[in-house]
């Protein structure tokens, strides 16, 4: 299939859309990471009220499609804020992604914290390592190692979920691909191009995460053999 001059123009638009997609995915992921780490630690506090509220909230957020959350923030956001501010698609999408994936990250952090062997806590106590040092140098590196595969997984899901924000009117990669497909009557090539963008990024992610996992698991390799 040959690409004509007008189609090349559409591919430039696609590239501009891809930048927006990446901005949304990266900012959403970083905010969810920070929010999830904080919420995950706070909800481990031995407080019944916090536990109960968290269980209900997490169940609600995890039981609803993220597309619905995006629509709710985009169409309903103005109403919920009393109609004072108009919400842009980017803001609505970013808010929805952060709200949803903060919960997933928090659950992951909670699970990782609980899976650090208790002997590690006892060992730091026995060696009289100060709490701050124990957390920085003993516990946290293990939490990161345990949570890493899940965090990579969440990044891939966030990246793919940014495609949904095009349905709330964001001019990202997917919406440009759709426009180009409609205008040129060549839908196949533009949708394949959009798909390949996501495929390449997840392949790059897998490469990168394999190296990260090797780095964080470096203490384990010796013991296992």
């Amino acid at each position: 299939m040959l690409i004509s001059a007008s189609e090349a123009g559409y591919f430039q638009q696609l590239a501009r859309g891809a930048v927006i997609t990446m901005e949304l995915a990266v900012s959403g992921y970083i905010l969810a990471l920070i929010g999830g780490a904080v919420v995950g630690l706070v909800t481990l506090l031995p407080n019944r009220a916090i536990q109960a509220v968290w269980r209900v909230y997490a169940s609600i957020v995890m039981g609803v499609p993220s597309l619905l959350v995006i629509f709710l923030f985009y169409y309903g956001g103005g109403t919920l804020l009393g109609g004072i501010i108009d919400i842009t698609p980017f803001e609505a999408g970013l808010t929805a992604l952060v709200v949803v994936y903060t919960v997933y990250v928090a659950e992951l952090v909670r699970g990782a914290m609980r899976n650090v062997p208790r002997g590690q806590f006892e060992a730091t106590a026995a060696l009289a390592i100060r709490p701050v040092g124990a957390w920085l140098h003993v516990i946290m590196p293990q939490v990161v190692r345990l949570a890493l595969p899940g965090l990579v997984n969440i990044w891939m899901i966030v990246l793919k979920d940014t495609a949904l924000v095009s349905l709330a009117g964001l001019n990202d990669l997917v919406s440009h691909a759709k426009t180009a497909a409609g205008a040129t009557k060549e839908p196949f090539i533009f949708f394949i191009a959009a798909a390949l963008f996501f495929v390449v990024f997840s392949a790059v992610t897998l490469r990168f995460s394999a190296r990260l996992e090797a780095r964080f698991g470096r203490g384990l390799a010796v013991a296992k053999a």
Partner: protein
Amino acid sequence: MPFDPSLAWDSLPRMLFGLANTVGITALTLVLGLAMAIPVTLARMSPRRIFRLPAAWFVMFFRGTPALILMYLVYYGLAQLPSIHDGPLWPIFANAFACAVIGLALNHASYLVEILRGGLEAVPAGLVEASAALGISPRQTYQWVRLPLAMRYALKAYQNEVIGFTKGTAVVGVITVVDLTATANEVFERTYDPVTPMLTAAVLYWCLINLMRIGFEFADRRLNRHLAAEEQRRRKPVAASLQPALARWTGLAAPNTERAL
């Protein structure tokens, strides 16, 4: 919050119809996805490159692509290819509902391949070698040793994937299939009330997802019933002694009885 209960009640029959469509798409995708995943898994685990490589590409492409783009690709993209448009399968690809199921099933199958492979590879080699030493045929070993164990190992990952793609079915609205999310959108467009239909749909999704979760937990208990006693024995003392250790260091403590959501 501007939630209108009477509108929610009036729109409920339509919403339930949308929910029925969502459930139908989910069920068909489950079956078709599994049917696609089994041969691809076998190819992916084959010692021959000629089978292994295409299967790996299949997984990489369909796993990496968002379901939304797959919808567009199957419904709009394939219609452009003469071999599809003039071929015998055109009645299927001209149907939005069928395209939605095919697109989602390709996505689901690619995840399923990795889950099945993970489960099968987690079966300890010693068990398979023991069956061979006992003169049990490879086919029977597969049927009675590897598969039952692989199912147990893979169940949790399968649950996550099924629940994930059930929520992902919300995108089928873009190719004119009227599922629950699309129904909520229709109600919004007619009434200009975004909050009520979206929240009603959210409640229905929540019920569906949690029903599925309960079903999976039932299956988990059934498949792992031989572990139940040990699990109880193991969980209590560890959790109890973890609590003070954590609390001493941080003021944080691990809640011990809670199950992952």
